[in-house]
């Protein structure tokens, strides 16, 4: 009552209108646009006077950005004070930074898609997927060439590596998380060390112990698979361990208190609960390995012919073949280079999407766990994938 009487009568209506927190006003837009235009004019005149010409567009952009930021900062500071000016400049930085990151991504993906389309889905469409490159050097326009040999090679090599790595890595992760013993500390140390290892070293290692002793006949899908396995192992162990850690301890205790022996507790409760997460962990490892170039470059040997047997004879795979297409034949095989790159990206992205979908899949048994797993896996997806 007192409050109402104290208020000036004319002010009541406006005071009760809810205030909008973020509004784009004409003034705010003008405060942004005018400094931008002013900076453009200023730098343009300066460049014209200095005779720098139109070729220096990048220099223009750099100078314009600097002048614009100064203009904008000073103008806002004059009108609203230093605090607001700092806030606006920070917002400018945040927006510009994330736009740069996104535009580079769009640029790269767009470029690969545009240039790879010709080979992968355009003119060479069916044959690119069904023929090998054994007629690649032939100057016959009707000769059918493709990347089948490389696709088969990648599938076989990564498949072999996965077969070897998965059981070993998952069981090692179970050891680390469920019943750690004396080996837990050394295991964690070596796995941590390995996960930061530059991938080229794995390739060099297999090259030295496997390929060289066989007088360079050791180039094979198997050698490539071994080097891929070295890259995959630490990734899969670390991700699996983090997934297992998310299984609630109460589930384990419930199993044990019902009288289940340890092995049943692990096999029937822990692993099924974490199944989706473990599959994700493995797929992440596979996706990472499939895109690796340096190790397979040193070990697979490469061959334009389709070689179905990974155990003997040099074999191509996608990264290695793309690299050699780019390196050897020059502009003539640029179509193949980008086509191969596009297929490679598609393979890796498919695996990632698969990992994401499985990682976020729900089971009735532990919906809660799955939800937490999902959040965690999103983070892991990117972190693991970016580790060399």
């Amino acid at each position, binding site marked *: 009552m007192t409050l109402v009487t104290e208020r000036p009568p004319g002010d009541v209506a406006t005071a009760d209108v809810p205030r909008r927190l973020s509004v784009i006003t004409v003034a705010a837009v003008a405060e942004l646009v005018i400094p931008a235009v002013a900076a453009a004019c200023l730098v343009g005149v300066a460049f014209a006077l200095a005779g720098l010409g139109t070729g220096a567009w990048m220099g223009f952009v750099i100078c314009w950005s600097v002048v614009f930021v100064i203009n904008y900062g000073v103008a806002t500071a004059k009108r609203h004070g230093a605090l607001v000016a700092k806030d606006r400049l920070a917002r400018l930085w945040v927006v510009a930074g994330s736009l740069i990151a996104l535009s580079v991504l769009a640029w790269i993906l767009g470029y690969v898609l545009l240039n790879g389309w010709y080979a992968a889905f355009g003119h060479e469409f069916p044959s690119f997927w069904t023929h090998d490159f054994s007629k690649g050097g032939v100057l016959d326009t009707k000769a059918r060439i493709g990347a089948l040999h490389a696709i088969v090679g990648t599938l076989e090599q990564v498949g072999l590596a996965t077969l070897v790595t998965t059981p*070993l890595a998952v069981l090692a992760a179970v050891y680390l998380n469920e019943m750690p013993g004396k080996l837990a500390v050394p295991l964690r140390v070596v796995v941590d060390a390995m996960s930061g290892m530059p991938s080229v070293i794995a390739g060099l290692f297999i090259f*030295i112990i496997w390929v*060289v002793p066989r007088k360079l006949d050791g180039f094979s899908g198997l050698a490539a698979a071994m080097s891929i396995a070295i890259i995959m192992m630490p990734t899969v162990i670390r991700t699996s361990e983090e997934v297992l850690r998310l299984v609630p301890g109460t589930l384990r205790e419930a199993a044990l208190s019902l009288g289940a022996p340890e092995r049943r507790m692990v096999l029937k409760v822990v692993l099924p609960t974490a199944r989706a997460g473990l599959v994700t962990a493995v797929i992440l490892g596979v996706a990472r390995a499939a895109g690796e170039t340096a190790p397979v470059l040193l070990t697979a040997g490469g061959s334009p012919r389709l070689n179905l047997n990974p155990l003997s004879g040099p074999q191509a795979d996608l990264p290695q073949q793309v690299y050699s297409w780019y390196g050897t034949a020059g502009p003539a095989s640029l179509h193949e280079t980008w086509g191969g790159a596009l297929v490679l990206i598609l393979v890796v992205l498919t695996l990632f999407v698969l990992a994401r979908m499985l990682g976020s899949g729900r089971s009735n048994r532990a919906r809660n766990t799955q939800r937490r797993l999902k959040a965690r896996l999103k983070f892991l997806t990117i972190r693991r994938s970016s580790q060399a």
Partner: protein
Amino acid sequence: MTTTGVGAASAVEVDDSPRAIHSPRSRPDTLFRGLLFCCAALVVVLIAAIMLFLAQRAWPVLRTSGLQFFTTSVWRPGNPGQYGILGDLLGTVTVALVALVVAFPISLATALAINEYVPGVARRVLIMLIDLLAAVPSLVYGLWGVVVFDNLVNGPTIWLTKYADFFPLFRPGPGKVGRSLFVCGLVVAVMVTPIITSVSREVMSQTPREQCEGALALGGTKWGMITDVIMPFARNGIIGAALLGLGRALGETMAVTLILSITGSATSHILFAGGGTVPALIVDWYSQVGPGRGLDALTLAGLTLFALTLGVNVVARMIVSRAGKMA
């Protein structure tokens, strides 16, 4: 009634002695544990064997070349030959530092955008896109770098050497413009952006929300909240994130091998063709040095690089985990 009571009391008397709370492990359980132990042991032995093997191959070169291996840039394979990787080491560090300097502000901006500036759906899309950036194989970045990006940078480079040559790094060099350590650094920057973004975002999102809201409620600006609440909380994590990115940048192979026109000598003209990095050295020479000392020298070069990345990664992980514990 009384009789049952007496019976119960006597039963208690019998069971009262303390008993072991661990039951002996059954044989299948012991076998299961054994299996797990064997797997763990196998992994440890395999990895340890790899390390020992590499070290054993590298040792003779280290003994004969000594410090010269790290202080000269002459790479003349043969028996005994001359091996020095100073230029490549410096090149590796240069590329990584350029990448970090470029990627860090962009990553931090992206992380802040995701955490503080972008609402709802757009935020999820942004996270997904940054994940996508991490999923692209490094070979593709390398191809893009050499085919598209290198040409694009050439113009501005010439402009810089013409009008900004007062700055030491922009002085005209001996080689051609482009295919340079600087271009490699820029491309590697694109590759490390997602990792720095995701790790620093994770750490910043652990800031207690009520403190952030408190800062805003006191009338602070968003930037004020970021500098006074989030940054003090997440500083260590962000530094760790940058170091993780640095470790990744140091080991990057394919992008550099594709882009750089490698000379292997130390160069301060980072805008011009020339220089080299350790991974590129390995990829360039592995098939040419022959199975003798040349390979051993390459192994030593690889191990040196590994030691470098390992050191950076260990420090980074320590910092990040300490930042996590504070939360």
